């Protein structure tokens, strides 16, 4: 069987950043699209063995099984149509485990097949979790540190402090370096949709604690990544989205709240600047260049 890499959207993100939830939520929205400018399924792929059980879990409001790095699922085949323009497209979207990307950073290498997918990709969706710390906290504010505890703590001279190892790199350094790897393989610009997942937590955070716009969130919370993308717009034209693909938490109360909604699609939150909807196809349309079409 030959695999075509010609049409591919790649989901990239460290562990627990919402890639599988996005993929399943997208599948649900494609079947139940209410935005006249949104994408819909033109037909279902022949093989949905990977997605169907996850979709069932998602519909029940359960936490999805973790994607296994050891047994990576085959790329999901997505057949979509854009009713507003009549455009049809087919994509392979591999749902790689976050640990795979961690491993790529550590080994400083892409597996051969992933490298070819990158070289031929139409777009990249980069996932960040809104609760993940982009960087390690520094001893920058000593007045917030318990002086007594600090004094008791062993000094570097007297105690064994673990050496830095590459696995300990901060998250934003990992993501930026992975994007630098990608840039080395690409001859042409690659559109990037930055998805900040679990956006419901940002919306429910107390006022002033977190920036409420996705683009501002990225620049304040992930400054190195935001600056890298901003200064490499010629390589990576990018747009930032706030997404909650499952719509809430995994507590019993939250699951009950989510499942009581009449339409499963209503769980989904997508924020793009001032736009707010449950159309998870919007980032995909941006990657395809369909976003610029006027809203109907």
């Amino acid at each position, binding site marked *: 069987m030959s695999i075509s890499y010609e049409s591919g959207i790649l989901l990239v993100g460290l562990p627990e950043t919402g890639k599988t939830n996005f993929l399943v939520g997208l599948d649900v929205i494609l079947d139940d699209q209410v935005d006249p400018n949104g994408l819909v399924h033109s037909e279902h792929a022949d093989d949905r063995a990977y997605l169907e059980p996850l979709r069932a879990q998602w519909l029940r409001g359960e936490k999805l099984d973790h994607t296994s790095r050891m047994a990576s699922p085959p790329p999901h085949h997505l057949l979509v149509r854009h009713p507003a323009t009549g455009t049809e497209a087919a994509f392979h979207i591999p749902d790689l485990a976050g640990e795979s990307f961690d491993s790529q950073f550590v*080994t*400083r*290498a*892409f*597996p*051969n*097949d992933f*490298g070819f997918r990158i070289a031929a990709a139409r777009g990249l969706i980069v996932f960040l979790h809104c609760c993940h710390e982009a*960087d*390690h*906290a*520094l*001893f920058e504010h*000593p*007045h917030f540190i318990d002086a007594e505890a*600090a004094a008791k*703590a*062993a*000094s*570097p001279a007297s*105690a064994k*402090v*673990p*050496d*830095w190892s*590459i696995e*300990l*790199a*901060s998250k*934003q*350094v990992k993501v*930026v*370096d992975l994007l*630098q*790897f990608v840039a*080395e*393989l690409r001859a042409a610009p690659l559109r990037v949709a930055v998805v900040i997942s679990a956006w419901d937590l940002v919306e429910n955070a107390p006022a002033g604690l977190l920036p409420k716009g996705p683009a501002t969130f990225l*620049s*304040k919370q992930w*400054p*190195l990544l*935001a*600056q*890298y993308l*901003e*200064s*490499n717009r*010629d390589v990576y034209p990018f747009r930032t989205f706030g997404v909650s693909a499952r719509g809430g938490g995994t507590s019993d109360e939250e699951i009950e709240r989510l499942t009581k909604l009449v339409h499963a699609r209503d769980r989904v939150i997508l924020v793009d600047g001032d736009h707010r909807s449950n159309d998870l196809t919007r980032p995909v349309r941006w990657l395809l260049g369909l976003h610029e079409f006027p809203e109907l």
Partner: protein
Amino acid sequence: MPTCSQPKCPIASTGVCLEGHTRGCPHLVADTAVRTEVAVEGDIVPPIPASTPEPFRFHSGEKLTAFEVSRILSAKPAAMILLAGAQKAGKTTFLARIGEMFRNGTVESYRFAGSKTLCAFERVTWLATIASGSGQPDTERTYRSEKDTFFHIQVQPIAESRQRADILITDLPGEIFPAVLSTKEVCDEQLAVARADHLVFFIDCGSVVDSAKRHSERDGACRFLSQMQKCRHRSDNLEVTVVFSRWDKIAASETRQEHEDYCGVIEDDITRRFSSGFRGLRFERISARPDPGMPQTDAEIQAIFGRWLNKIPSLPMTTASRTPKPARDFCAFGLP
């Protein structure tokens, strides 16, 4: 036709790889075709199993070697910065602070545009992070074995968003410093001494506040600057910044005025002796990692950083390539 795991290697089209090999390059991808060979007697030799395709490999993230730097300099203009000073004068902490400011988004005039050495920047900051469990901020020193290795950062001026500039920074290991002062030959061996566009020399205020050490500190600064003038073909194209590092040691001292006055004496002395020998000579007072209660000097550090970029011809983003006959790389020093 062979293929290569290195991005943008032209071997498939030209027959010569990025590193000049026609065969035998370790980056060449093994031929994965399954071969079946028939022996002379007619026995069928079992097929050789296809080897695993080579992965695509990328930069290590650690400090660049002189060879890697030479390749960068051959491709595009870049500013080379040499940080020098005695052991524990704060060179690496200064460098770590620059990396931290880009990571926390507090650099005001420049945007981070890339780095081949992100891991190296993380490494030098590690002991200042709470996650390290070190108990108090510290910086791992630069070892002798790290001589002639370089940090890399690419930035974009916020006011000029069509431009990018590359900076290569090396910190002379403090262990080597005495030998560089005492022997011209050792000084000559340091690749960055001859090639640097900017020198940042660190005078440790931790020594300045100690009357037993301050004269050696001053003497070391003058001798190093003098050595630079001797070892460089031209010193009038070198920008020099003399940094009074760990300034918080003076700011917190009970006899602060006395030490400030002594710094003034050092400044006058260096200016008198060296201002005409270099392209520029400036002085800064910084505390890259100040003690509790002492003010940050990020603005001063950013001012030094900004000066590194003043003279490099930053290129438009789409045409950042260099002449095939590089004039400013390490070729002149015997490297390929």
